[in-house]
């Protein structure tokens, strides 16, 4: 049965015994395997010397010239010490002959220019469109349960991006408590950081517009940080700092502590904001990544209004301290 359906030749083979016999070389015998030839020992200290020496050579071309005049053969070609003897100089003039691209004259300058543009475009990278729902959650708490959404995303290349953020929360059965969107130009300024500049629009309350300036990225110990300052059209200055840290318990089970601090430079009574630390939010969420892109979570999140903001909250009949038990999903695409 098995033999009957044996699939022949779907793998590659480049010879058979029959074939080998046709070839004269089959008669040759193979020399006994030899051990590798003696090698100059790889000695760490001489490696270090190599590095230092070649750096010196870079900096002192006169010295390099002298070195290149030395008897290379005597120095033992291939040895680390030898490297310092080879000067790092500019290519000879012949290397600059026939300016332009080599293929242009044969293939056609226009054709090659278009082809180059295509390849360079691919390598520069396609613009990436990314949307993340970092927190989309149901918040169980004393009083009316609530909800929160926190989305962000970008469109762009390696260094320049259009970045957007949207955040809002409220209680079920009531008008939405707060909502805002941000539209930002984001520029990579360091391996792990982008600066962002743009506008924030409040969608609730007095619907203020703010100038937004921020920095977003990854600080040592892998904290994701997003810090921004906002100046409203009324001249109010506020700021917000968010930090998140992913702690992998297993490859898919991830604990994420999160902190958010809101600050204000002045009282903004119509927004219920007091000068100084306005509010602090600490949370921890445990998510399970069924896929990297899709992870439900549970967690707890504690919010405190501080200082004058707490007073404003009390005056409005609200508790300045709220504990939310949350369940939600984190996703991106």
């Amino acid at each position, binding site marked *: 049965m*098995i033999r009957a359906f044996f699939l022949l*030749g*779907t793998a590659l*083979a480049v010879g058979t015994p029959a074939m080998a016999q046709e070839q004269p070389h089959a008669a040759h015998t193979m020399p006994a395997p030899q051990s590798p030839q003696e090698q100059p020992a*790889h000695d760490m200290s001489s490696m270090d010397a190599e590095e230092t020496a070649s750096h010196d050579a870079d900096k002192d071309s006169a010295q390099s010239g002298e070195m290149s005049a030395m008897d290379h053969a005597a120095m033992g070609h291939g040895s680390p010490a030898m490297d310092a003897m080879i000067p790092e100089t500019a290519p000879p003039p012949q*290397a600059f002959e026939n300016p332009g691209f080599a293929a242009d004259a044969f293939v056609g300058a226009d054709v090659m220019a278009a082809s180059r543009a*295509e390849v360079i475009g691919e390598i520069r990278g396609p613009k*990436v469109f990314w949307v993340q729902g970092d927190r989309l959650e149901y918040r169980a708490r004393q009083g009316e349960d609530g909800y929160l959404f926190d989305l962000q995303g970008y469109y762009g290349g390696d260094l320049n991006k259009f970045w957007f953020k949207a955040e809002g929360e409220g209680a079920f059965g009531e008008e939405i408590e707060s909502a805002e969107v941000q539209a930002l130009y984001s520029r990579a300024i360091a*391996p792990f950081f982008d600066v962002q500049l743009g506008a924030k629009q409040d969608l609730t309350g007095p619907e203020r517009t703010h100038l937004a300036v921020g920095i977003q990225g990854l600080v*040592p110990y892998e904290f994701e940080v997003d810090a921004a300052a906002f100046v409203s059209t009324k001249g109010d200055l506020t700021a917000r700092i968010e930090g998140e840290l992913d702690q992998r318990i297993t490859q898919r089970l991830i604990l994420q502590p999160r902190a958010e601090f809101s600050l204000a430079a002045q009282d903004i009574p119509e927004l219920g904001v007091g000068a100084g630390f306005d509010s602090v939010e600490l949370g921890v969420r445990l998510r399970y990544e069924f896929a990297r892109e899709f992870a439900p979570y549970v967690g707890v999140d504690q919010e405190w209004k501080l200082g004058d903001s707490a007073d404003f909250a009390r005056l409005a009949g609200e508790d300045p301290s709220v504990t939310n038990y949350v369940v939600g999903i984190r996703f991106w695409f």
Partner: protein
Amino acid sequence: MSALSRRSFLSSSTGAVAATGLLTAMPAWARGAVSGTVARKGSDVLSGEHLTMSVADTLFTTGSRRGPGVAVNGTIPGPLVRLKEGQNLVVDLVNNSAHGTSIHWHGLLVPFLMDGVPGVSMAAVEPGETYRYEFPIRQSGTYWWHAHTLQEPLGHYGPLIIDPIEPEPHQYDRDYVVMLSDWSEMSPHEIMKKLKVADGYFNYNQTTWTDDYDMSGEDRRMWARMRMMPTDISDVSGATYTFLVNGHGPEDGLEYLFRPGERVRLRFINGSAMTYFNVRIPGTAMTVIQADGQNVQPVETDEFQIGVAETYDVIVEPTALAHAIVAESTDRSGMGVAMLTSRPGAKAPIPALRKPPLLTMADMGMGGMDHSAHGGGDSMGGEMSGGAAMAGGAMKMRDTSRLPETVKVGPGLDMVAANPVDRMDYPGLGLEDVGHRVLDYSQLVSHKPHAEVRQPTRLKTLHLTGNMHRYMWSFDGEKFSAVTEPIRFAYNERVRVKLVNDTMMAHPIHLHGHFFELVNGTAPDRQPKKHTLTVQPGSSAQFDLTADERGDWAFHCHLFYHMHNGMFQVVTVRPLAGGGAK
């Protein structure tokens, strides 16, 4: 569709497919129907002076995975092009696919216009077009060919074998190709986006609270402080890749037949997009006789790491009923498997995946600062402790003052190797302590002395740079899209090229159209010739080059998504006069 179900039936009925002789007639029923929709696994053979290679979009299935593929002449891999040294070759490349295509003849000495790199030596062959390649065959050995476009990782690659005019230096009874590759259900664009937006997307061997990696808390904090992952070994892993041997997944039961007492030549070709493999055949030693198509003095070993785009030919003399040919990905996320068997259906046990390795101090570019990095042995803990000790003190992961002015410093550069040492004697990550012999570059010695033994007259240093987090890759800090000047050589100039790897990944660097000689400690006239060189993480490596092929040539990291995200350059050999299209 009917073709697919027929194939499924055949595969599941047999559980085995055999690798047979090149000249064996293959009944049509046994090949599986040629289908416009599902690529067949494995290659047919193309020989002669005038070949036709037709590219088409297909589906591909392996195990339970199913997704897009690109087949050449209906198969993945595409045809085995088998040639004779000294012949002329004409290939008509017919593009029946929906995207631009090309064929690059990897490792072949060709006129630069025949090299098959869109944007450098030709324009992509558009859908419906036919392009003619024409060049003489000036060498022998094991090579491969592949598209230099986004079609490559989808299946547009195949083996290329050139029989020498002179007799082969070694005797063997059977001669097989073992072409390793990686295939994903995801399209290359999808993979690229995942790599851009999510660190470690494909890595399910990350450090966690519950892992059993031998690392102290201090070491773990050090890595977190650096914002790097000690498990960052393969950007794309077995989480999405199925590792293929001649197009066959581990479940396909590919067999290579032998008779006891026979000497079997296995031509390993790593045609992967992104995967380094550790290759071993438990129970039998391998004698390496060729690397990158060039004969070397025989070296007996038990395992070797094969970088993307490299080839190694080995001779084995299997003694057991069956031996497993195991190609384990270096991150230990999966393996390609085939059986070397003396009886169809006989199987040897397949070893389990070994424990994933961790990057070391040397991979951070601090090799010289910790001697244990060279010492082999289970020194991981020790190395990491060394690193942690430095974390509080002098260690700087990105001291850009160490870089020459030629390197552009910006967001695309996240690390500078503080002390990049030459690691020609390094067997590859995870192979320092496997309890048996492992090949390294310092063991490669050219079979014959070279005629060319001139001393290099100048040194050219290039830094391999990148930002893992942003997934940007470059030479000297500049992605190819930002580069304005090629790397220049004068015709016949002899140059030593030093590559410094300022990243924590191994990069297989490939120069088109030339062989270079590894500066690996052997005598200058015996330095092994290669077309692709792995530069170990945080390390340096050197090669000597005689720039004797005029024209513009691609020079790049052969990890597909590194090349495609910037680690690409053009080497030009001038003047063109006397050889523009020689």
